[in-house]
């Protein structure tokens, strides 16, 4: 590295302007570095949007084909847990946004508190999700060898759901497609939950670094870009919630 002519050349060395330690050499200014990182993060998030978009598209196509099965499958989801989880995630997005603000205004304690709250809400979301998953396991609604169509060929056998929706029994050849509904349900909410788990893990590490004062010295890029990731995960849920829980409640 040091044998490059540019470094030996004194004039070139003099061009080396003063900059904070967190600014990389190949950027003119800290602002340019921040804009570039922000741009890169958005490119990553757009690939994620395309990925989840594929799942959403598959869901909409199969819902269109096997409409009665998808409606009956949707009726197995709990409005209470779904709405509560939406609220939890929106509030966690708010605490994360406040965390970014604390980092920008160099409030170390505020940042730590915001990150801790975001972490708790993130874990709370996953806890509620696991309650929902447990219900599906108990009812044999997890696709695979133990899958059961009983709730759909004989809805009266599932009194809790029946008293709310009064679904008519599905013909056996339509009822088998509820397994496809639950495959997509687990794929979409599972991929979303995986993103949450990754987010929660990164958050846990960030709390330690924030306590050491890593993000409150003017270099907020990491907190800011993590915030973008967290809000993106929130947006995915904002669409999963109506598609899975809300739009099939009637008929």
């Amino acid at each position: 590295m040091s044998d490059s002519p540019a470094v030996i050349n004194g004039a070139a060395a003099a061009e080396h302007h003063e900059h904070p330690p967190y600014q990389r050499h190949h950027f003119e200014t800290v602002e340019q570095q921040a804009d570039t990182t922000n741009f890169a993060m958005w490119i990553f998030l757009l690939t994620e949007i395309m990925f989840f978009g594929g799942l959403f598209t598959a869901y909409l196509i199969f819902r269109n084909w096997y409409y009665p099965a998808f409606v009956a499958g949707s009726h197995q989801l709990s409005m209470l847990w779904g709405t509560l989880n939406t609220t939890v995630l929106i509030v966690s997005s708010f605490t994360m946004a406040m965390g970014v603000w604390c980092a920008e205004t160099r409030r170390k304690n505020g940042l730590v508190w915001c990150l801790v709250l975001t972490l708790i809400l993130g874990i709370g979301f996953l806890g509620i999700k696991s309650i929902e998953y447990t219900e599906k396991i108990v009812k044999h609604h997890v696709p695979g060898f133990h899958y059961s169509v009983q709730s759909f060929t004989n809805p009266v056998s599932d009194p809790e759901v029946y008293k709310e929706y009064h679904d008519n029994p599905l013909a056996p050849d339509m009822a088998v497609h509820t397994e496809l509904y639950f495959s997509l349900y687990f794929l979409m909410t599972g991929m979303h939950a995986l993103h949450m788990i990754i987010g929660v893990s990164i958050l846990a590490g960030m709390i330690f670094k924030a306590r050491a004062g890593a993000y409150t010295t003017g270099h907020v890029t990491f907190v800011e870009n993590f915030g973008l990731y967290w809000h993106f995960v929130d947006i995915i849920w904002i669409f999963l919630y109506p598609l899975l829980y809300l739009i099939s409640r009637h008929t």
Partner: protein
Amino acid sequence: MTEVKPHSHEEHEHQVVSPKVYLAIVATLLVATGLTAGVSYIDLGVFNAVVALAIAVTKATLVILFFMHVKYSTRLTKLVVGSGIFLFLVLISMTLSDYFTRAWGRW
């Protein structure tokens, strides 16, 4: 080699968004969540899906503009986000309009 003028390109001042804005946004998002949950109890036929998705799009737009700071970002970021979402909509609408207008694959 021509001399590159430092700081010649469009400089972008980092803008700190006030907590008041975040509070207003989170309040709106929570109200919208309550609204979309409430509307799902009323039978509107095909409009249940339309209303639910319209509210979801509104919520997502608020998150992108304010929580994700796109409103306060560089023109480059705005262009990237806008064109990315546009491309996404083209892909999804072309695929869905093909599948929804044919009977193939059913059964």
